[in-house]
């Protein structure tokens, strides 16, 4: 009797969900409508079946979303009778609490609304879909990651995690980020999505889209500030490997329009998910570590 690798990862993620739900007063699941958060919700529903998922969802909305993804988010929430809170970067920009960056990228701006929402709702545990394979600062991340009252991550003061004993003790004002997918890779995520027949927004599959080239990536034209002079729009067959802020999430050239084709494409890719599609990680060698220290995921 043994488990294959997807069964092992599933059993571990479910164990983590149940531990956090039992140990914390007010957990919340970060949900953007992207594949990792959809997978997280699927695992949470399995973990607590036949009871309801005992926590709500939180979306930090940059205002630069793909409309298909927002529609998917809202449909999912309605279908399963879930609670969704939305924290909007746009509100912060409109009333002057945040300023638009020169490069137009709003991903780094999410940290403030996220931390405000955590404070306002007194969330003490926040489930995130971060994976250690995404980036080398994330490779150092714990499954239960303590954040101080300012939401900061200090990589040198992390609690060692031994066996499957997750220590969720925290003081008032502190909270814990919980990462049930820590040990999953991008390929595991897609293999599991295929095995479980999990529905995804259409932009993950190859489709014709009007895009333009910037910083080595195909970006979708939109109100967020592209294309600029000298950037020309063309129609190409593309798909998205990650879904985030439109201003910094690139599409990849692809004909993969089925889950099998996507899995084959990822297995053969020579680029990491983030390397291929995320402009914000290219800002510096330690961009992710620096943002995580400030409270980002």
């Amino acid at each position, binding site marked *: *009797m043994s488990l294959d690798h997807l069964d092992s990862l599933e059993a571990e993620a479910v164990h983590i969900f149940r531990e956090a739900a039992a140990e914390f007063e007010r957990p919340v699941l970060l949900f953007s409508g992207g594949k990792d958060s959809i997978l997280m919700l699927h695992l949470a529903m399995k973990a607590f079946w036949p009871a309801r998922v005992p926590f709500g969802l939180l979306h930090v909305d940059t205002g630069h979303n793909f409309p298909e993804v927002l529609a998917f988010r809202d449909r999912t929430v309605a279908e399963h009778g879930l609670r969704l809170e939305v924290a909007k970067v746009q509100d912060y920009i409109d009333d002057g609490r945040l300023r638009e960056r020169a490069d137009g990228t709003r991903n780094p701006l999410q940290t403030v609304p996220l931390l405000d929402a955590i404070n306002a709702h007194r969330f003490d545990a926040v489930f995130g879909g971060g994976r250690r394979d995404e980036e080398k600062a994330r490779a150092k991340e714990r499954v239960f990651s303590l954040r101080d009252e300012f939401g900061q991550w200090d990589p040198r003061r992390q609690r060692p995690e031994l066996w499957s004993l997750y220590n969720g003790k925290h003081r008032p004002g502190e909270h814990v980020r919980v990462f049930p997918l820590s040990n999953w890779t991008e390929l595991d995520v897609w293999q599991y999505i295929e095995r479980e027949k999990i529905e995804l927004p259409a932009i993950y599959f190859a489709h014709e889209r009007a895009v333009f080239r910037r910083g080595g990536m195909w970006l979708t034209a939109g109100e967020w500030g592209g294309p600029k002079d000298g950037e020309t729009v063309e129609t190409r067959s593309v798909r998205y490997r990650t879904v985030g802020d439109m201003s910094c999430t690139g599409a990849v050239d692809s004909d993969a329009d089925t889950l099998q084709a996507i899995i084959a494409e990822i297995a053969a890719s020579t680029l990491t998910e983030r390397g291929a599609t995320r402009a914000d990680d290219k800002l510096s060698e330690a961009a992710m570590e620096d943002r995580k220290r400030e409270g980002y995921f």
Partner: protein
Amino acid sequence: MTAIHEPPLHTPTGSLLRLATAGSVDDGKSTLVGRLLHDTKQVFADQLDAVERVSRERGLDGADLALLTDGLRAEREQGITIDVAYRYFATPRRRFILADTPGHVQYTRNMVTGASTAQLAVVLVDARHGVVEQTRRHVAVAALLKVPHVVLAVNKMDLVGYQESVFAPIADEFARYARALEVPEVTAIPISALAGDNVVDPSNAMDWYAGPTLLEHLEDVDVDHDPRHCAARFPVQYVLRPQSSEFRDYRGYAGQVTAGAFRPGDEVLVLPSGKRSTIAGIDRLGERDVEVAFAYQSVTLRLTDDVDVSRGDVIVPADRAPEVTQDVVATVCHIADRPLRAGDRVLLRHGTSTVKAVVRSLDSTLNLETLVRESGPEALHANDIGQITLRTAAPLPLDDYADHRRTGSFLLIDDADGATLTAGMVGVPLGTAAED
């Protein structure tokens, strides 16, 4: 090391192996991890580009593979690994989670952390130096943590002319030492992480070696759990009571089987209360009434009786129950920078329960080099391994760590700020008592 490799053309579907690496700073551990990742085609072009760019900026000739794994600013600045990191790679036969643990003496706690979940430990030695103090320390930690498989990787064989006469005595000495520590299985492999000999691809330079490469061994090693030999254990995590129209009377105990197997009809005890019941049914993540639940599945058990069961309880077979006690004798590794002393009041986290506890006595510390237990320490400091006695505020069902890693282990936690202080293993410690 600079060429962009062929892409990996496989999607793994096999089992999952968790392994930990141990090795001193200069044994080439980062190079070995880099080599494993690189030769199994897990290093992506953008990652390699970044490594090459940074290597160039630092004036190095080639790409420094250690940069693939040292992820924090402070690590890159100091050129050392500070903290455990987890790496992922796969072959068509198996998926691997590698706990990349720092080798410094002062980071014993990190080795303990990495080894706690490992099914296999790779201990690296430099062929020029052979088995040194640090090697003995690594094997002792693997033995202490009951890692079932230990691999000795004799590295830098290229620097000793690939000679069997260098490898064989190191392998012998290591095997003798590991046997004395009751490590169940030891395999020795001569490698060169730098040149790539016997890591993923077989070496042409060592015809005398007929065994597997490191990767072949990792793919082949048998880590399947055989539940017939192991008493079943089920720490209750969460009580599921949907109270919906469809599941009005449903009451299920959600958790992960940590050892053995359960079947409907099994007579069970709920510990620590000792109430007896029978398994009425088992549900597995939305699937109703499965025939069996075995380690390490996450499932939901239903019982025939309406007994009082809550988070922190452990469900066990009626005829193979652990001892329920408030007195705990354990081997511990102290983790926190603040010392642990007799009289300290702490929280003890065991399985899914957390109880108050007091440190009754510090009985001995273990010298990892000599394996002698030195009695009567005044305090346990960070990275110390010792034997302590605790008294808990409530009875706990405690297994011996030698039999059950999950229900034989615990953490001590500081109630004031929640810091993890100490990692504990129930039972008789390693080593021999000091003679005086």
